[in-house]
């Protein structure tokens, strides 16, 4: 349920593990698609001008996972997407590592760009995930 509590159900879109930044590029190509757009949210080395070593992400996991699943369905229906990949990391994410990865493939670039933008903006606005304190470097 929270960032660190014990047992939980399997999650589809949230992960405690490192996100492979090439995960989207390794997906098989669907020949109906002529456009692929990817967004990577990466932990910056500073937070409010202070150097940090990592950020911690906390989520209300059952709700966050379900909402991301719904947003994906909405994006697929609205832009006719064939392939979508969303991963959001929770727990401690060291600087330089991927906090969120979104990949979308569509027939044409307009749909792909718009859908990718829709997904990241909706996640940032509505999905119950929070950055908590950054871990400062010494």
């Amino acid at each position, binding site marked *: *349920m929270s960032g660190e509590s014990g047992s939980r159900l399997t999650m589809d879109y949230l992960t405690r593990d490192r996100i492979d930044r090439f995960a989207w590029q390794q997906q098989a190509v669907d020949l109906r698609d002529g456009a692929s757009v990817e967004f990577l*949210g990466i932990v910056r080395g500073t937070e409010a001008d202070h150097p940090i070593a990592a950020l911690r992400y*906390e989520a*209300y996991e059952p*709700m966050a996972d379900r909402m991301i699943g719904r947003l994906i369905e909405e994006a697929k229906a609205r832009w006719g997407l064939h392939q979508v990949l969303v991963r959001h990391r929770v727990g401690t994410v060291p600087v330089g590592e991927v906090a969120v990865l979104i990949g979308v493939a569509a027939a044409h670039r307009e749909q792909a760009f718009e859908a990718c933008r829709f997904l990241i903006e909706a996640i940032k606005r*509505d999905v*119950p*995930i929070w950055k908590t304190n950054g871990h400062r470097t010494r």
Partner: protein
Amino acid sequence: MTVKVLCLAQLRGRIGGSETAVPLPNGATGRDLLRLLKNRHPQVEPLLEVSRLAVNCEYVPADAELHDGDEVVIIPPVSGG
């Protein structure tokens, strides 16, 4: 009736533990619950003011009626991504 209130992120531990049972009069709404919490915990009023409520993993409007046994989650402004 009694609802279970769960506080996450910035609110965690600031409204008496992360999970609190709150007795409410029958027919109380989300807004009534928030008002009660604001009165009890004035130090987090500004945060409650900008928080949303979720019941059973769905956002609900402030005027939604709550029911006995509901798990109400208070969702402070999110900051994922």
